[in-house]
């Protein structure tokens, strides 16, 4: 239990997907222009992570490892992610048209979001770690906690950046730096702030 909580907190702050491993950067920069849509994308990413990571965990531990098919993991993971995104999209469309209308454009894009694939690949590394290591993933519960923590960390990062960018509209930024350039530098400064969490231990 303690291990799970530690894993959860670490994946939000210390191992934040954006600031420590740069996962899902493309959509992070493209969709962070206003808080509302970025919140939608953040929730969608968290949701898809929560479903794909446990499935990929089970596949890795119970199918790929016993059969020594490790080299197939890239193809298998991306197929699982693409399929699950498709299913989630159909479910959301059927049962909550309003959520679908707000997430609609992002859902298909999540299939090629590096955050999802990256989390699966990092999990693959963490399964092999010593169980005493605070980063290790030892069971399906750990995989779930890692997914939830990573998703929330990503959500936090994108909403924070969107808030800053909304305010920055009114600033007088040098012309060539406007838009993308200053966004990168802002994210860099945010990453520096997040480095303060690196000593965090539970």
């Amino acid at each position, binding site marked *: 239990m303690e291990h799970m909580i530690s894993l959860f907190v670490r994946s939000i702050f210390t191992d934040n997907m954006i*600031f*420590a*491993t*740069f*996962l*899902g*950067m*493309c959509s992070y*920069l*493209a969709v962070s222009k206003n808080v509302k849509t970025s919140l939608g994308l953040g929730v969608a990413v968290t949701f898809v992570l929560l479903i794909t990571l446990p499935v990929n965990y089970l596949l890795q531990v119970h199918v790929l490892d016993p059969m020594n098919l490790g*080299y*197939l*993991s*890239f*193809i298998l993971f*991306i*197929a699982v992610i*693409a399929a699950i995104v498709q299913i989630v999209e159909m479910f959301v469309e059927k049962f909550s048209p309003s959520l679908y209308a707000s997430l609609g454009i992002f859902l*298909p894009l999540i*299939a*090629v*979001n*590096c955050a*999802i*694939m*990256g989390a699966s*690949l*990092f999990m*693959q*590394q963490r399964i092999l770690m010593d169980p005493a290591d605070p980063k290790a993933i030892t069971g399906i519960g750990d995989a779930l906690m890692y997914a939830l923590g990573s998703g929330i960390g990503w959500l936090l990062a994108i909403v924070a950046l969107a808030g800053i960018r909304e305010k920055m509209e009114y600033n007088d930024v*040098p*012309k*060539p*730096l*406007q*838009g*993308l*350039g*200053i*966004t*990168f*530098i802002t*994210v*860099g*400064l945010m*990453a*520096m702030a997040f*480095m303060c969490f690196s000593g965090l231990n539970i």
Partner: protein
Amino acid sequence: MISEKTREAFMGPLNKNNPVVVQILGICSALAVTVQLKPALVMGIAVTIIVALANVVISALRNTIPGRIRIIVQLVVVAALVTLVSGILKAFAYDVSVALSVYIGLIITNCILMGRLEAYAMSNGPLDSLLDGLGNGFGYMWILVVVAFVRELLGSGSLLGFRIIPESWYVANGGVYENCGMMVMPAMALILVGCVIWAHRALNKEEIK
């Protein structure tokens, strides 16, 4: 001899249509593998090879792929190529493959690939697609090399593993120089890419919005 369109397919991505600094594609790996020059070079070469080959394959198949499942087909082609490259790296350059860790696998979801396959290979012939792939790969590589050059030189005082700043300059050996520890942190990668974009836009006025 070479048509304008073919030339543009190769030259465009190198500068005014650069995948990283103009189209903002493939940022994740561009930031993560640039602590040192060697992994950055290998990553650039790997992406160039994969994007060129995937472009050719998809372009050759473009008339037979059903529109509805084209994303899955593209993903499978790319995933197969990435698996091959990852295996080759593990066999012949194990230390680089460890340094790149998951980012080799993440080439599958690198937006440059999906972007080029969707936007170019699905509607152009194999030869043009090959050049477009090579152009985009090199466009990606030179940004990586610039960022990695600065980070390795200032962060570790070496280039490609060879020492550039002499040992005797360091404070530990009685000198006055010290490595900039920030340079090896993720935060500086972001700021450096921001500066590259700044310089690029200052030089290409038409990019300024």
